[in-house]
Structure formats: structure tokens, C-alpha cells
């Protein structure tokens, strides 16, 4: 039983086909099957936000999503945001504002913020904080993260 199923996904614009057990979590699929270990696994029950990725353009907990459910989906992970040599815009803002300390929660924050910048007006600090509230930073560097998002939102301007 629990027959292995072939799935095809796009991750950061690259296509992958793999055969997986239905119970494999998307987070484990990304890390173990594709070797994309930028997506971190913290609590494994949807509370900490470290495993956040974009699923068809919207943020999702990859620990609460099965890999089989993502068949055919367009997935974005932190690896798609930039490289060590050339940081993405959100990553650069984190560096500029000291938005990370230990860095464990950072990939989840970055992907949540990618969703926020695409879909949310982020007119006020209150809205920024509310949108970030599903991601936990054990180093409690929230103030710097909010500063980074505020700059990014200002730079983006009003949502189209």
C-alpha cells in the first residue's frame, strides 16, 4: 500500500520529476530529494514558519503540505531569491538592517516577505507585524526584520 507516486514540480524555474511516498512532506522532498536545504524544518507542525515556501505564488508551510499535493505546482524557495555572490533584494535588505542573527528562521521569513510584497499593501507597521506574525525568530530580532520590510515596502510603493 501507500503506493509511490510520480510527481513533477517546478522549483525556482527548474523542472524535477521524482517518485515519492504519499506521506513525504514537501519540506523533506525539497531537502532530501532535491538537495535544496535552504528550506529549514523547525517545528513540523505549522507553528514556527521556518519551512515557508511559495506554492503557486502564495506562501505555504512546506511541513503541512505533502509533496504529492504539489504535483504540477510552481514552487519557490529561498534558493531562488539569490546567491551568496549576488543576494536577492529581500536578502540584501536583511543584511542592511541586521535582520538575522543565527539565521535559522531567515529562509521562512524571506519567503513570507516575498508573498507580502506581492500581495499585501503593507501600509503600516501594524500590518507588517501582523503579516510577519506567523514566523518565529528565536533570536527575537523582530525589530530589524520589520525595519527591512518597511524599506522594501516603501521601495515597492503602492500595490498594483
Amino acid at each position: 500500500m501507500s503506493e509511490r507516486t510520480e510527481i513533477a514540480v517546478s522549483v525556482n524555474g527548474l523542472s524535477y520529476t521524482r517518485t515519492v511516498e504519499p506521506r513525504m512532506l514537501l519540506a523533506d522532498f525539497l531537502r532530501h530529494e532535491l538537495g535544496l536545504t535552504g528550506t529549514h524544518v523547525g517545528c513540523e507542525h505549522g507553528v514556527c514558519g521556518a519551512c515557508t515556501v511559495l506554492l503557486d505564488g502564495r506562501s505555504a508551510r512546506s511541513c503541512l503540505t505533502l509533496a504529492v499535493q504539489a504535483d504540477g505546482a510552481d514552487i519557490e524557495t529561498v534558493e531562488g531569491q539569490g546567491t551568496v555572490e549576488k543576494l536577492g533584494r529581500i536578502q540584501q535588505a536583511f543584511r542592511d538592517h541586521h535582520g538575522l542573527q543565527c539565521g535559522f528562521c531567515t529562509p521562512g521569513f524571506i519567503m513570507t516577505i516575498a508573498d507580502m510584497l506581492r500581495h499585501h499593501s503593507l501600509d503600516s507597521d501594524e500590518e507588517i507585524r501582523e503579516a510577519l506574525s506567523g514566523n518565529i525568530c528565536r533570536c527575537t530580532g523582530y525589530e530589524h526584520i520589520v525595519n527591512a520590510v518597511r524599506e522594501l515596502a516603501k521601495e515597492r510603493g503602492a500595490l498594483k
Partner: protein
Amino acid sequence: MKPASFDYVRAESAEHAVQALAAAGGDGKVIAGGQSLMPMMNFRLVKPSVLVDINRIPGLDAVQMRGDRIVLGALVRHRMTATDMLIQKHIPVLHHAMKHVAHLTVRNRGTFCGSVCHADPAAEMPMMSLLLNGAVHIVSPRGERTLAAQDFFVGSLVTALEPDELVTEIEIDTLPAGTGWGFEEFARRHGDYALAAVAVTMQRRDGVALDVRIGLMGVGEMPMRAPQIEAMLEVREIDAALLDEAIDALRASLEPNSDLNASADYRRHLAGVLARRAISDAWARAEKGAAA
């Protein structure tokens, strides 16, 4: 912290889904948003032998008017409920309540109907479906049936749903223009499970309250209405004395649980504080509605 193994069925239609549930012989589980089910599966508190994924069934993701009611399909995500213009216009109390539902990422996936089926006594959607006289539409291999929300909830995390049944949509009341409403929730952290919440709607005509509805969550085994308190306020002018009387009666009627987060006494007190605010807000908003 990984799910036990299961068979996976990607349902193509509601009929396909319920056939797969029936074939699972009582050990199947439906997944929509999975924001409550997946944590329970990861913890192995739930170990279905068959998981029936309804996410790709066409036609279940709409919010629409049906007569003077609103219908939410089984794949309407919290984000859609929170931003839907019909709901904002016709059920402002639900629009407001959505601000308290979890976090952005969870709202992207979690569904209205799924939350009702999960029946957490401290979740907003079950209470709102009671407050808005929800009708739960159910299909199974035996046909279709509709249950009133008050008959749907049976206990904490327990509903009247049979193992081979699927909720396809839930129909809820819209509120007449000018209806006053109040919604008050207290949680330790924003978006977390509430210690308690109270939702109130009422109309106001000739200086008295009419069609008073009070919903409560987090203060019992199930979400609940407060029919005794609703009746106390019906066709009355809500002044300070009546409010005191109503809050005392409400507190006396509640038997909340104690847990790590709060004692029963604390919850009983909190429910009274929140109810006082929500009733006052509803009364004040109904006045504005009546004047307009």
C-alpha cells in the same frame, strides 16, 4: 514527527471523494487546506489509512449569494473569506473575525469548511457558522443531506459527519443592512488559539434590540450560542443595568475547561468582559444603522 503511511487519492469530483472514503471502510480522512489535519498527522494523533485530497475538485472554491444567504464552497480559503467583497458588505462581523484567524501563510491554505469540520471549540469558523445559522451541505454514497450548524457540532473536535461523508459547502446568513455587530477575542499571541471570543449581532428598532444573537467560543466543549442571554436582551433597550444582569447570567451559565493557558474561573470572567464589549459595540453600531 512524520505522518504514518497512507494511501493517497486525488479526488476528481465529490462523488469520487466519497467513493474513496466509503472504500476506506471508516478509516479515510479528507484533506483540504490541511492546516489542522497535517499537524495531527505529523504527530500521529491521526493515522488515516486513506487520505482523500479534495483540493483539485473543480467548482468548490467560490463564495456566492444564494437568495439572501451566502454559500462558501469546501475550498474557500480563509484568505478568500477575509477579502471577499460580498462577505465584507453583507456579513461585516465575519469579515472582522477573519483578522483573528491564524497567520497569513495559514490563511492561504486553511478553509472555512475544513475549520468547521475540524470543530475546534476555540476556532472562529465553527462559532461563526453557529452565529449565522449555518447549513452544512453533505454528500455521501447514500446521497445528500443538510445539517444545521447546531446539529453538526457534537463535541470537542467531534461532528455528526459520518466517515464516508464530505462537506461540499456551507450556507450562512447575510445580515440586513444596519445590523449592529460586535466581535471580541482574546488570545495570548495574535493569531493564536483564542482563550475566549464572543460575537454578537442585533438590530435596533424603536429603541429596542431585535434578533439578538450571541456566539461564544473557547468556553466549552463546543462553540455555542447563548439563547438564554439572547432572550434577555430581545425587545429590550440595552442599558447599563440590563447589561450587568446579562453578563452575570452569562457567567453563571458557563462551565469552561481549565487548561495550561487559563483556569475555568479566568475564562468565565474573560467571557463576561468580552461579551460586555461585544454587546455594547453591537448595540452602538445598530443605533448608527437605525439612524442611517
